[in-house]
């Protein structure tokens, strides 16, 4: 298989990059500026693209690779890949579902607790010596709160299951009501936001869900409400979120993703009611290795003519 040419267009775990290098003829265009040179020299031989949450093949790139057969993404979200173009061209697409579900759900609960109970703030309070001057103030109880889940897919359902252990009530919004679900359904995001204490964004990023968290939703969530985003930065109208937090129209936020990662709006740095993470959902070595193996296994299956393990297209 050393002769098969593969193009890497997103940042991935070093282990994955090394394995791709070993097994295939690997070209890199992680930085878009590298693209032109790679395409000039190798466009006609590339049979697969490896993508990730930081980069994927858009329509133009797909068009430019006449031999492209498969796109394998080192992520569960495939918003960076032009799926429509792939379908048109008969290009297969795989992602990495399930292996990161539990970890992301664990982190989500951790984020909620960190915001409501001010865990990071309290840690700073102790480290800076302020506890000697007096106790930290009262924070907000999590147990028994109402959790609104935007997107009751694998991750959303896993978050709900954990929250039930805290006696939380669960409600959700998704494109279609799920008849088997025991949770309360709301037919719009605004209604969901109006009726929950904590809103968790856990849906895929598509053109329909771009900025699904807008001013109206944020205001509906309100001065005591908390937004948790473990989806994609572009789910949220970030300037609106920032102004709502600064003005107190939103009670708090826990964010693992941002519109322009790794850029985090600096206005948030001084706020004690936000928790900011550098996109660590799925970041543990075990999970990222499992994701990498899934990418490698999907590619291998494809080139051996076997069924793909986790196809999306």
């Amino acid at each position, binding site marked *: 298989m050393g002769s098969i040419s593969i193009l890497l267009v997103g940042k991935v775990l070093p282990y994955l990059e090394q394995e791709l290098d070993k097994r295939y003829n690997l070209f890199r265009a992680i930085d878009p500026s590298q693209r032109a040179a790679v395409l000039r020299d190798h466009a006609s031989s590339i049979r697969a693209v490896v993508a990730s949450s930081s980069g994927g093949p858009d329509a133009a790139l797909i068009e430019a690779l006449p031999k492209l057969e498969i796109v394998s993404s080192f992520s569960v979200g495939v918003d960076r890949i032009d799926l429509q173009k792939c379908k048109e061209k008969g290009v297969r697409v795989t992602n990495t579902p399930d292996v990161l579900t539990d970890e992301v759900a*664990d982190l989500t609960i*951790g984020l909620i607790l960190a915001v409501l109970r001010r865990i990071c703030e309290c*840690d700073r309070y102790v480290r800076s010596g302020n506890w000697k001057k007096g106790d930290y103030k009262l924070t*907000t109880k999590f147990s028994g709160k109402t959790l609104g889940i935007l997107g009751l897919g694998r991750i959303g359902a896993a978050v709900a299951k954990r929250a039930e*252990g805290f006696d939380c009530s669960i409600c959700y919004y998704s494109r279609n009501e799920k008849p088997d679900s025991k949770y309360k359904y709301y037919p719009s995001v605004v209604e969901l936001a109006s009726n929950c204490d904590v809103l968790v964004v856990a849906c895929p990023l598509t053109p329909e869900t771009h900025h699904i968290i807008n001013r109206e939703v944020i205001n509906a969530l309100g001065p005591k409400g908390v937004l948790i985003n473990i989806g994609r930065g572009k789910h949220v109208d970030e300037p609106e979120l920032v102004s709502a937090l600064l003005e107190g129209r939103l009670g708090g936020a826990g964010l693992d993703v941002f519109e322009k990662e790794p850029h985090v709006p600096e206005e948030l740095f001084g706020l004690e009611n936000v928790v900011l993470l550098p996109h660590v959902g799925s970041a543990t070595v075990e999970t990222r290795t499992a994701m990498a193996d899934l990418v490698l296994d999907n590619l291998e299956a494809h080139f051996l003519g076997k069924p793909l393990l986790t196809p999306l297209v």
Partner: protein
Amino acid sequence: MTSELPPLLVMGPPALYSLFQSQNSNKYRFLDAFSSNLPLLQFLQTQQIHPSSVRAILCNPLQPVTADVIRSLPSLGIVVTVSVGSDHIDILECLRRCIHVVTLGTQFTADVADIAVALLIDVHFKISAGDRFARNWGPCKPLASPSGSKLGGKRVGIIGLGRIGGEVAKRLEAFDCTIMYHSRNKNPSVSYTFYSNVVDLASNSDVLVLCCPLTEQTKYIVNKEVMLALGKDGIIVNVGRGALIDEKELVQCLMKGEIRGAGLDVFENEPNVPEELFALDNVVLSPHAAAYTLDCFMDACEHVAKSLDAFFSSKSLIISPIT
């Protein structure tokens, strides 16, 4: 005529005192005994209160309700403590005098369990470290990938499977953790694996959560041997009392990587925290705030108010049993 409000002697004081006072300002004549260095009887003189008119005490473990205090107050009928424990109250003297002793029940159980889980997730996934990194605050190192993975499948050893331990277990079961425990006695109504020996529990656990009271038997129940048995991938969470852990040894183990990390809400000598911990990324530090939510304080205030109301109106008093 002096005020007709019944006097309420306040010792401690309980952290919720200012909230309670604001909610009950028209019901009691508050006597802040905690704020005076004078002996009790002299303090009462300065307040122009005759000892025989004091029928109720509101307190917490910060200031003991001793036999002397009780004997100074011939009409004392009720002691309400804002705590689950009553070690700071001379129970024998209260029994002799038929004084009701009211403790808290489950008002803060959920909040403390929540903090135990919060600290575990934070240490495991490096949430506070990540937040510091994102804000570029303090001694932040480049954020190395946490070596762990999901919590599911992890073995959690709970030391003290009382109400709080039970609530911690329930929460972590929803994360697919395996629960085991050590308690004074095996609990026949739970199916978790019981360990009569803490070192054995530690050897078979990935996480230890301390939820037991501090007694002579439980002091330093987590010592160096236990920490080494827990091992380099192990995490300790303490929401009990600081002295359940040999703090000096804990600091050494954390600095040397003998255990992976610790989430601590309590310390041996609060509010002093060993400063060596401040430079570490594998600890999360909390200022004994596990019960500090508005919900919890409101529930506790309500419980205190109801107990005092029932007493002063001579209705039949439902007393929280003292264990």
